[in-house]
């Protein structure tokens, strides 16, 4: 359909002249599309000039930039006149080539190092960066001040929008239970969330939530004490920040700016701790319960019931995040039972009335809001 009509220049090597040299050249001055064909002359002292039948352009070698190599010629650009383009043959005499900018292939760093060396160095740096990134939650998490964590927790979930159940009797019972498993002077904040799910979570900022579904199916206050102590353990052992960082890192890796941190409560509920963290939290729970003389058998029967209902293996109930991310329920039940060492008589953690107050807390709170997920 279309055809070129202009004559293509040839790149025949020109004659050497006495004290100056020249090679064929083509250039565009950048103001219009007209092609100039002529020669590039250089005098051996750094002076370059382009000469065509009707025009002459002085060039400064230091001003030229390498553009690209084509099949039969090399493209140079100019630093001071960005639209200027110069084409020279690929096989330049060494005297001229030494004055012109060198070839650039991959980019400055790689060109300087060579492909193999650059690839090796980049690999090493990348592996180190990935290792740092992967392990960051474990060493960085516990080092983030608790006050920061509290602020992050405040920003993410605040007071949960009035979905925490409150009655005077229930609050008192919960405070009593919490006092037994969290001896620190500044207590974590604990609450029962109006949500029908067998779950419990530790939120950033030292807030622990038992879901009403879990409270409803608990058969003794000791079961609740066990779960509460476990979540307090996550807070006290600084697991929350570690898990949060891990979640955040994952979301950065997956480039999902809308997942991770921004998932808020939903993300937190599904946020997993490592097996080690779970064991640490369990150890913490058993130590506190032993201190306060609370029976670990309640927690043991809770896990035995979970094992029966969910098959004992943690992979059998992916939906129940709290159960799923924890070590096998059977194994944990055994650990709690062993902690009792055959002893069966313990004073009750809280009275039956107090336990009943916890059970009816959400039903009796007229102001509590429903949990709704979008």
């Amino acid at each position, binding site marked *: 359909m279309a055809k070129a009509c202009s004559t293509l220049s040839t790149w025949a090597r020109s004659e050497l002249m006495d004290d100056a040299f020249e090679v064929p050249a083509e250039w565009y001055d950048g103001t219009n*599309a007209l092609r100039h064909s002529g020669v590039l002359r250089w005098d051996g002292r750094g002076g370059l000039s382009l000469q065509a039948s009707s025009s002459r352009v002085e060039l400064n070698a230091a001003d030229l930039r390498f553009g690209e190599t084509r099949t039969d010629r090399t493209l140079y650009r100019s630093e001071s006149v960005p639209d200027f383009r110069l084409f020279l043959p690929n096989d330049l005499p060494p005297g001229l080539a030494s004055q012109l900018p060198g070839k650039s292939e*991959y980019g400055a760093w790689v060109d300087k190092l060579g492909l193999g060396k650059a690839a090796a160095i980049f690999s090493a740096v990348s592996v180190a960066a990935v290792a740092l990134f992967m392990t960051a939650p474990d060493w960085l998490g516990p080092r983030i001040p608790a006050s920061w964590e509290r602020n992050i927790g405040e920003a993410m979930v605040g007071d949960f*929008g009035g979905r925490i159940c409150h009655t005077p009797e229930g609050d008192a019972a919960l405070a009593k239970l919490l006092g037994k498993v969290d001896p620190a002077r500044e207590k974590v904040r604990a609450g029962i969330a109006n949500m029908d799910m067998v779950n419990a979570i530790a939120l950033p900022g030292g807030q622990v939530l038992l879901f009403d579904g879990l409270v409803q199916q608990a058969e003794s206050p000791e079961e609740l004490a066990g779960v509460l102590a476990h979540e307090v353990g996550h807070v006290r052992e600084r697991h929350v920040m570690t898990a949060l960082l891990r979640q955040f890192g994952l979301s950065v890796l997956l480039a999902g700016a809308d997942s991770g941190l*921004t998932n808020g409560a939903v993300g937190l509920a599904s946020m997993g701790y490592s097996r080690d963290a779970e064991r640490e939290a369990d150890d913490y729970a058993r130590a506190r319960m032993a201190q306060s003389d609370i029976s670990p058998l309640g927690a043991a029967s809770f896990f035995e019931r979970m094992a029966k209902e969910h098959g004992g293996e943690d992979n059998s109930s992916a939906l129940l995040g709290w159960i799923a991310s924890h070590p096998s329920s059977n194994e944990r039940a055994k650990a709690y039972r062993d902690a009792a060492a055959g002893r069966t008589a313990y004073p009750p953690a809280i009275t039956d009335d107090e336990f009943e107050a916890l059970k009816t807390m959400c039903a009796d709170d007229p102001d509590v809001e429903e949990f709704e997920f*979008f």
Partner: protein
Amino acid sequence: MQGSQDMEGSDSAFVFEGNWKDFARIALPNLLLTIVTLGIYRFWATARERRYLWSRTRFVDEHLEWAGTGMELLLGFVMVILLFGLPYFGLSFVAQALIARGYEAIGAGLGAIALISIFYLGGVARFRALRYRLSRTRWRSIRGGSDSGGFLFGLSYMWKTMVGWLPLGLLIPWSMTSLWNERWSKMSFGPFAFEADAEAGGVFARFLLFYLAPFVMFVGMLIMGGMGMLAGYGIGGDNGRAIGGIVGIIGIVLFFYLGLGLIAVAFYAKFYREVVGATRWRSLHFSFEASTMDWVKLLIGDALLVVFTLGLGFVFLSYRHWKFFMTHLEAGGEILLDELTQSQTRTAKHGEGLLDAFDMGAI
């Protein structure tokens, strides 16, 4: 000086002269460097690939030049993260925090604002990517560009796309052609603007195939399912029928995806013939002559290439697509070289970051 390029000959105005072996020498080291830099080299890799593809493409009597750099692509990416990613992240965070506190409506409203801004910026990104590519494409040292930043086009993109979908999607061909015209009319090369007046009528018939599809599919599914059953019956017994049923279901699924894919390809083939054919620049007229069959061959070739190289072949896809594009692109008319002066449009110092972020093509 000498004057004009007459293009009434037998050769195509656009000729691609690259070969895949040369390209491999670009693409494979690119892949290596991209992997060892955890993807950061990607921007330089893109620039290197384009430099090769452009420089091996001849328009009439001079090769194209890609003057973009990896650094400006990186800059575009960083800008998107700073100007768009962080605010979007913050907005979603606030929305979630509000929902957690019980302000569901406000939270959802903020979430919606975040989504609408993505929609808007998607339109802006399409515009700016084309502008960027034209401004970095040089022929005889002359480049293209646009005086518009694409922010108004973003608004057009939003309302035209929405109007296109409203009447059961029937106005989609109109919104697509109209947006093509609007976008290209704001672009220029050298001192002259492009003009585009593609009409939806030309592609509407093909578009109706999408509506016909459910009926064709239904019949096809019956046939495929029936054939599966019969085949199973031939094997015999309950087992045979079960196998036949499974074969039938696989057939149905294949038929569904292939059928819908084929309709989409048929539509886009027609769409590009129509819109490129309706695009002009000065006295040049363009045409794009790829038939549905050409597209199908291209896509099947892509799939085979990737599958049989265990995925490595994907680095050649950009080569194949550029070659396809240049092989089928034609131009005719006359260019007066001395009136083709340098473009006076402003150029952005950053690359097509937004489009990169949204993973879309420019044309």
